[in-house]
């Protein structure tokens, strides 16, 4: 029961998507449409699961007294949200009530084993920012028009979410620099080829030589312009020919790998996704 049914589901769903490609007739086209809709809805729930799991892990770090206080504050906040939510029940109150129930269940479940951890404060900020975003979005942003420009939800998106997520990724620029200084060595012929190709792409995809041309006396600017043309041409050439060839070889390899793995999954030979043999 725990293993067979998932195996059957995997097989049936997978086969429908393959057969539908070759046989457009009913029932395969409708079935693949239905399974696509299922996928969409289950994925949405899977992401909800991730969010709830985050709250559960954060609650775990608070310690008993703090957990009680936090739960009380969150519940009050949710009640305020439920009262202030738009009139259409399903477009605000319903998800808030759902979350309130899930939250209380999780808090109850975690209570007995909750122990104060050193990073309890940051767990608390995580819970707080989650709940603020939730209530702002579900209760005070006008229901279905929640992401129109100017709503509270949109405001938090622009002024909190955007800078945080962007800056988190922008830090990689610094790490790339540090890595290129200390790690990227032409330690063998292969690595040397990699670095040479990288040089042409990096130098040729930006107007580097043209810029250097503007700094040098006029007598040299012609030479720089030629260099710019050469570097840019070299980058075009690398991208369109050797890069396309290498990418294509990788694509073909990966395609065959995916085909064989998918086949094993659909036929139930590969079972690690449902917990092994």
């Amino acid at each position, binding site marked *: 029961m725990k293993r067979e049914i998932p195996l059957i589901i995997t097989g049936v769903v997978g086969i429908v998507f393959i057969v539908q490609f070759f046989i*457009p007739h009913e029932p395969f086209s409708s079935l693949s449409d239905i399974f696509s809709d299922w996928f969409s809805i289950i994925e949405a729930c899977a992401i909800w699961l991730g969010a709830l799991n985050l709250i559960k892990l954060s609650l775990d770090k608070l310690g008993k007294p703090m957990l009680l206080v936090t739960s009380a504050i969150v519940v009050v906040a949710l009640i305020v949200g439920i009262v202030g939510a738009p009139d259409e029940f399903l477009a605000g109150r319903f998800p808030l009530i759902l979350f309130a129930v899930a939250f209380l269940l999780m808090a109850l479940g975690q209570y007995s084993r909750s122990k104060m951890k050193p990073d309890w404060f940051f767990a608390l900020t995580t819970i707080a920012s989650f709940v603020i975003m939730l209530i702002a979005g579900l209760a005070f942003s006008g229901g279905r028009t929640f992401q129109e420009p100017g709503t509270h939800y949109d405001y938090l998106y622009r002024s909190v979410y955007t800078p945080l997520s962007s800056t988190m990724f922008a830090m990689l620029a610094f790490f790339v620099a540090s890595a290129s200084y200390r790690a990227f060595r032409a330690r063998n012929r292969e690595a040397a080829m990699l670095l040479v190709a990288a040089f042409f792409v990096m130098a040729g995809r930006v107007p580097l030589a043209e810029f250097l041309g503007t700094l040098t006396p006029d007598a040299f600017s012609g030479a720089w312009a030629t260099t710019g043309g050469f570097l840019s041409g070299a980058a075009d050439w690398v991208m369109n020919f050797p890069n396309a060839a290498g990418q294509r070889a990788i694509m073909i390899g*990966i395609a065959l790998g995916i085909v064989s793995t998918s086949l094993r999954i659909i036929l139930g030979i590969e079972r690690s996704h449902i917990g092994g043999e």
Partner: protein
Amino acid sequence: MPTPTIISARRPTSHPRVFTAVIATLALIVAFGARNVAAQEPAEVTDTTAIVEAALTPPAPPANILADDAPNDAGGAIIVRWDKSPDEGAGLDNVGAYQLLRGRSPNGPFDTVGTMTAGMTEFNDGDVEDGIDYYYVVEVIALPSPDHPNVEPPVSISRPSQPARSSAQWIHMGRLNSLLAVVILASSILYFISKAKGGEKLFIRKIAGLEAVDEAVGRATEMGRKIFFIPGIQDMNNVQTIAGVTILGRVAKMAATYDAKLDVPVPRSLVMVAARETVKQAYLDAGRPDAYDEDMVHYLTDDQFGYAAGVDGMFVRQKPATIFYMGAFFAESLILAETGNSIGAIQIAGTAMPAQLPFFVAACDYTLIGEELFAASAYLSREPKQLGSLKGQDVGKFFILLFAIGGILLATFGVYNISHWFLVR
């Protein structure tokens, strides 16, 4: 008898109906023209007569409206094609748009199905019921005249099409080549899996990075430092993670044999469960169950950069002798590989993420590229299902090489171009 009746009933009636349609069209043109002229201020009509006429005369209607079932589909769609209006790009040159209308009889009533810009001569009507006859007319709408913004652009209507009905097909004819490819690939993969299960030894070539695993583990023992194993940042439903955990089993066995310390920080709870089982089994196989400690495999966090920062800190503090990266990596690959390199560890990496491979190639001592990761897990685990599918994939590659080399030669010497054999519609 009903079948011939329907056919014979359809053909002859269409002629007189076409006739009426023509008259109706003409009448419509006249009516529109009259209405528009009537709406004009007389003063405006007199200024530049030619422009006004061009603005008020509808373009000639398109001819040859052909409606037919859309091929290779599940039904519910009819493709309509028409010749462009003689006034498009020539003549009056005043075609603004086409409008497709559909009706149950050639006399109407017709409902609008879609509007197309000038230049279009085809529409796929995906909103019909199978088995019902539909008649289509195409209406051509004149360009709005900039001089007469209040005048509604005149229109003219084509003759109705022959009736068409949609139906579903059982086989998609444009995809038979793909079906053949599926059959060849699937059967060779399954054949080799069963062969491997039957105990036959399947050959796999040497993979450079794997030869170094022994040396790397031995070095950790000599130095008395740890071995770190990072199985990527994805969950167990990613094939690369599965391959990584398989390789972990082999590394753990060596670590147990050489008595080196192993440390496996993981970003997902499911991966932790799987990795613990694997490592435990490896220590058992090596005859060192006493040396196994559950905390060798431990969960850090799901968050990508949180995980990277955590692992980074462990590298710097514990200065491992050897680091393995085997699995699916994203932007954090760079942070990890750079730190590992800077503390002087031997690093062996393997991933099928093309965008992250350059960082591993540049910063690690050995890198398993793309499919090599899967080959490595098959090579090390000797599991029949993995060995067999690797061999089956090679059959696929063999055919691809054969067709690619042969096809290029044939095409270059002008014999025959086989490339369309591989076009899937």
